């Protein structure tokens, strides 16, 4: 029995968190080096190695800690290094290479460590310093991305030191599954994958289905929207948050095991997730009788293989089963009949990453962010023709203008903002005149776009909307699974017509036919991909029909 108590203590998350906090406390300086896909591909591995070698050489390894973190957000300025020295202001360095890193170490870190009080980085580094007072940082509200860029995603103890797995403990030890579902329902959390269905309701439906032998919770990490990488960054920057969210979901709905379905194009995210799962198993957070309770749970990872349609939950399930990722008609919904015919609940990465925060801080706290119907925050991949492109998180209801002009720093090169595109290939454009519109599920829908998974593309006035629509349609036609006729043939026909118009060969009747097919596709396609594929065309037509008609052969001549 003594052994048992010993083991329980060894695997007590509070003990582990305290030990880690004490360890971190010993260091006077933390150097955070972004180690996500973006910065890694710009060489952050070498930078980290260099920093370590300098610290070793100077015998500073005991005093300075180097943390390879997840995404810090400002990807366009990467690789990023943030230096945090006790008693001094944090400094963020951008676009560093080996030479600059060396300078950062020698001219700032080493000297600052030897200086009492404030120490200003020298002049030669000034063009590589990003002010942490930038609206890009100040105007964000980090809930999901709280840990990303601050902790080493490969160290479970660091996650614990930042409050990790406390929410799970709270759920397992102080709440019934029904109470967990209720709390999530109350929070107003909605699916972050695009659909926006109430997460609590989904859990409630899943919980209602009796667990005969198995029930699954599936994490949808098949982020396919080209130009969006929220889920990748979350998995790379804070994988434990997603695992913890999944475990809480599993507890709430009575799932027996969990599956992560992640794009094969995200090797780093997969690797971090794998390590995180291993760490959980090692620390008895996965397996039998988790935290000494009756709760038993295990997870596994399955990879996608390059099919956007697998973001659709029934297609995703087919893909895990080892089949073509074609959707099937619903009902039956996966909550009743999912993976291998067993009840399954599919939640998006970002959705699950929200869960532990809600349980810890309460549904009311979560619901204090956002609008009447869209609660909490939303992560966006802000890209395109914008000064600061990167990964951001804002409360729901933030206006587009605040996102683009303040956080994003506006459109560069003196060009004017024309529109913002959300929802990727399933979404639409929001013209500049709607810039004061708050970003939430309902408002975006009103102007013909959707929230989507979080891609936000800024378009300047040099962009041609017909080409943009063609770009998106080209994508969906390429990604159509081919199962249903409206999407398989309709998309191809639309693309042909659009191409004809774009090349200046189209006539009014082609434009009419384009609209007719778009309508049929929206209404008669089997799944979301086909139903929404015409959106980029219809949305650009709605606001920029003149750009289409100007290209027509029989365009009415404008009076000059």
């Amino acid at each position, binding site marked *: 029995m003594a052994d048992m108590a010993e083991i329980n203590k060894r695997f007590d998350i509070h003990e582990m968190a305290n030990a880690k906090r004490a360890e971190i406390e010993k260091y006077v300086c933390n150097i955070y080096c972004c180690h996500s896909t973006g910065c890694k*591909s710009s060489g952050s591995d070498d930078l980290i190695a260099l920093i370590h070698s300098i610290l070793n050489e100077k015998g500073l390894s005991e005093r300075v800690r180097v943390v390879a973190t997840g995404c810090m957000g400002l990807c366009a300025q990467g690789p990023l290094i943030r230096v945090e020295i006790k008693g001094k202001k944090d400094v963020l360095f951008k676009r560093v290479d080996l030479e600059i890193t060396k300078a950062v170490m020698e001219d700032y870190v080493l000297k600052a460590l030897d200086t009492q009080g404030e120490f200003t980085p020298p002049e030669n580094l000034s063009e590589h310093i990003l002010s942490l007072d930038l609206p890009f940082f100040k105007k964000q509200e980090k809930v999901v991305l709280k840990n990303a860029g601050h902790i080493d995603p490969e160290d479970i103890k660091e996650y614990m030191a930042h409050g990790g797995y406390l929410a799970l403990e709270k759920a397992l030890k102080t709440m019934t599954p029904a109470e967990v579902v209720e709390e999530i329902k109350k929070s107003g959390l909605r699916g972050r994958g695009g659909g926006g269905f109430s997460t609590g309701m989904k859990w409630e439906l899943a919980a209602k289905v009796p667990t005969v032998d198995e029930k699954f919770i599936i994490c949808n990490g098949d982020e396919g929207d080209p130009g969006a990488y929220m889920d990748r960054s979350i998995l790379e920057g804070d994988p434990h948050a997603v695992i913890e969210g999944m475990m809480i979901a599993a507890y709430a709905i009575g799932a027996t095991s969990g599956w992560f379905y992640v794009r094969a194009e995200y090797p780093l995210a997969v690797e971090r997730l794998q390590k995180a799962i291993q760490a959980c198993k090692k620390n008895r957070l996965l397996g039998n009788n988790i935290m000494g309770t009756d709760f038993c749970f295990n997870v596994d990872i399955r990879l996608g293989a390059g099919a956007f349609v697998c973001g659709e939950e029934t297609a995703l399930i087919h893909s895990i089963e080892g089949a073509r990722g074609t959707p099937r008609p619903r009902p039956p919904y996966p909550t009743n009949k999912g993976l291998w015919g067993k009840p399954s609940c599919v939640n998006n990465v970002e959705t699950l990453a929200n869960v532990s925060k809600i349980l810890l801080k309460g549904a009311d706290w979560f619901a204090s962010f956002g609008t009447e119907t869209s609660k909490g925050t939303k992560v966006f991949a802000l890209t395109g023709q914008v000064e600061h492109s990167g990964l951001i998180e804002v409360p729901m209801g933030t206006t587009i203008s605040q996102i683009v002009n303040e956080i994003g720093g506006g459109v560069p090169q003196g060009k004017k903002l024309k529109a913002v595109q959300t929802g990727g290939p399933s979404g639409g454009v929001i013209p500049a005149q709607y810039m004061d519109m708050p970003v939430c599920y309902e408002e975006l829908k009103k102007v013909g776009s959707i929230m989507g998974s979080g891609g936000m593309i800024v378009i300047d006035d040099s962009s041609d909307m017909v080409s943009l629509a063609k770009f998106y349609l080209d994508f969906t036609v390429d990604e159509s699974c081919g199962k249903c006729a409206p999407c398989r043939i309709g998309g191809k026909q639309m693309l042909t017509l659009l191409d004809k118009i774009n090349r200046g060969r189209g006539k009014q009747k082609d434009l009419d036919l384009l609209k007719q097919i778009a309508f049929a596709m929206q209404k008669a396609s089997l799944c979301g991909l086909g139903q929404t594929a015409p959106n980029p065309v219809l949305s650009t037509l709605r606001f920029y029909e003149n750009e289409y008609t100007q290209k027509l052969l029989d365009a009415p001549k404008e009076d000059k």
Partner: protein
Amino acid sequence: MSEETSKAAEIADKWRKKRGSLIMALHEIQGIKGYVAWEDAVMLSERMDVPLARIYEVLTFYNFFKLVAPGKAVISVCTGTACYLKGNDKVLEKFKSELKIKEGESTPDGMFHLQCVRCVGCCGLAPVCVVNGKTYGRMTPEQVPEILEEWKKAFKED
């Protein structure tokens, strides 16, 4: 049995008993030669007890899988939205004209394979190309010949 074949057989046996394993096994098999050969598919079909027809249904559905050997250097030009807006189409054109092949093709000498991919997740670095796992950010068409030279040189040294 060649070393490659026995490796493939090992993969099949490893995944045979696991659920939802076909795509995982195919990923690993592709990892050996860079593509999934007919004989590997047949072997997998027998060992994993999955009909060959199902295996090819899957192989030809997902973009990731290749049925023929790609070139030694696989050039992936990102055609995600950010890269599109920042002009990666011009970079793609440059690759095509330099290599005299279309996307999805390999050079006759088997050196290069050119393909388009949907978003490698480095939108901040747009436009982006990836060659055998090495990422090139903020690409311009002018960089194309340099990159090709770099890889030609790398292969010569091998």
